[in-house]
């Protein structure tokens, strides 16, 4: 277990996190890495986000796609839950709304495999402070 005893330790941990990501890319035969973030606040879970996240976690390995599927908090699109954000390495993140299992399947087959956009995209309209 790493403990942070000084400011330098904090920076060291941050560097190691970034290095681990780089390592994953190399281990992935330099194929583009896919990161999927599922909005899993109470409201997202209530509208079915957990099932969608489990679907990605089960299906992606079966379909030979290496991806990091992770939960996050509220993205703010309550009107379009469940929502998720997919970032294909080196590309801009794309947000999808109203994702049910059928849509999730379509996203894997069309967007993740072929880079093709599908219905239900939420254009990002905010700036971030960091």
């Amino acid at each position, binding site marked *: 277990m790493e403990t942070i*005893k000084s400011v330098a330790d*904090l920076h060291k941990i941050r560097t190691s996190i970034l290095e681990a990501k780089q390592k994953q890319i190399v281990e992935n035969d330099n194929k583009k890495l896919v990161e999927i973030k599922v909005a899993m606040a109470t409201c997202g879970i209530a509208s079915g986000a957990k099932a969608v996240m489990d679907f990605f976690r089960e299906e992606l390995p079966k379909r030979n796609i290496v991806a990091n599927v992770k939960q*996050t*908090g509220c993205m703010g699109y309550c*009107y379009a839950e469940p929502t998720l954000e997919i970032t294909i390495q080196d590309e801009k993140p794309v947000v999808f709304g*109203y994702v049910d299992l059928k849509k999730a399947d379509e996203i894997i087959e069309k967007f993740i495999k072929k880079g093709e956009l599908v219905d239900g995209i*939420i*254009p990002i309209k905010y700036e971030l402070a*960091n």
Partner: protein
Amino acid sequence: MSNRYRKNLLVCNGSSCQQASDADLVAFINFKLKEYNLEDGIKVVQSVCSNKCSIGPNIIVYPDNVEYSKVTKSDIDDIIIEHLLNERIVERLVFDKENGNGVAPIKQYRIALRNCGFIDPEEIKDYIEKDGYDALAKCLSKYTPEEVTQEVIKSGLRGRGGGGFPTGLKWEITSKSVSDQKYVVCNADEGDPGAFMDRSVLEGDPHSVLEAMAICGYCIGANKGIIYVRAEYPLAVKRLKIAINQAKEYGLLGKNIFGTGFEFTITIKYGAGAFICGEETALIHSMEGFLGEPTLKPPFPSVSGYLKKPTNVNNVETFANIPAIINKGADWYASIGTEKSKGTKVFALAGKINNVGLIEVPMGITLREIIYDIGGGIVNGKKFKAVQTGGPSGGCLTEKHLDLPIDFDSLTAAGSMMGSGGMIVMDEDDCMVSMARFYLEFIVEESCGKCAPCRIGNKRLHEMLTKLCDGKGTMEDLDLLRNLSVVVKDTSLCGLGQTSPNPILSTMANFYDEYYAHVAEHRCPSGQCKSFMLYYISEENCIGCLVCARKCPVGAISGEKKKLHIINQELCTKCGVCMEKCKFHAVHLN
């Protein structure tokens, strides 16, 4: 990975854009693409609302990221020929500031929500990766507590829980109180109906709150932090616990943080969900194990709070802003917002609005931008009537306030308040008298009962509003309602009673005609109050099929086959089933 489409057209599928379209744009564009033989290389995709509803319909060309607005059928040829075939942007359809032909693009700016939805809240490494705990490291290693406090004062940050008290000043006052023990308390007792900002921050980015509490502890000289969170937020509690444990394991909470000798620990206290416990003195009594009742201030918690020790109470959203202020500087934060209200505010949009959701916007944005651009307008294209800000303690803002720049002071001047950030939007179908009654009902249930004006006064106010909604009100009642509201406001002990009549006073100020109609004209203008409704069956349409009589749950409809049916008004509960079931539109409502 090969994408067979070289470009995409993202057509906004939001209801506002659809209403503004002169055709089914998706079908029309697909038809046109075929005409130009482009259907193999270009794909039309329906997108969810792009938050530029006032200049819709909007189409984004992807991956070029060019957005065309107010697109009509006749513009499609231009977009295809110019943009898709010749790679030239159709300037006349681009609406932006530089172009001078339209509205500035509305942007949300996320400071408190900077990590919400981007990191795994149960994974401290995600937070560290996004500059997490840098602010704490910076404070402990480079600055004195006074310097950090001055930075927070300079940023102009004001309490986001509703009061709007300058945060830095609160820290300074608490730091000057002399005591062997001080406390930092995070108020996560979010209780306004329709508000969910704090829950979202706790569920999405708990570490930023922990980090900010530690910074606050450093400034005021406290080594203990307590989060008072309602037990009704189980996921927020779970994620907070995980976050606290991870921070402890990493040495970011506990003894000798960053090797500087600074010690800080955080524990959680659960609230049972009483609205009054959001008031800081009541919250402190609840934490001590006593009844959640407020006490008169002074003494302020900054002098004598939890266990009679100096205590600094801040709201979740206030804390969530702190690490960003420390990292990016007070000047940066103070450059956002209005003169007296700096930074951004998180709002929870609810009610009759298309894009129900959580937004963060710079202070000074207008209500119109929030409702019609970010919020996507009113559901089903109905007319906007009012928005309730500040929950049960706030007031309503109407059409005439749409262009008011929103900040703490402007909302107060308009007879409402910022509150914690809940915004409930109402349309033409909502009755303002029953809306006021709803809030008073909430207050009657939530009043702690300690002081008479709040305990008895609000009860009487609620009774009077019920009388009005039942059609039994008199003109004297209206005067009494207003007078009693003022008395309750002036004489109640704490913020709850001092603000609880606000929904009445502001609806009376803005919608007196509705109150008048309930009493003098014996009608509810928006048709919400059931007691004024009268269902009746019209002679010309009724064929005597007996369906309504059979479906009526209280047996209020009588009639023989092929003869006109009649509703017994004494028995009718105004459920509307007869109207719903009649295929011949014979049941009417006056």
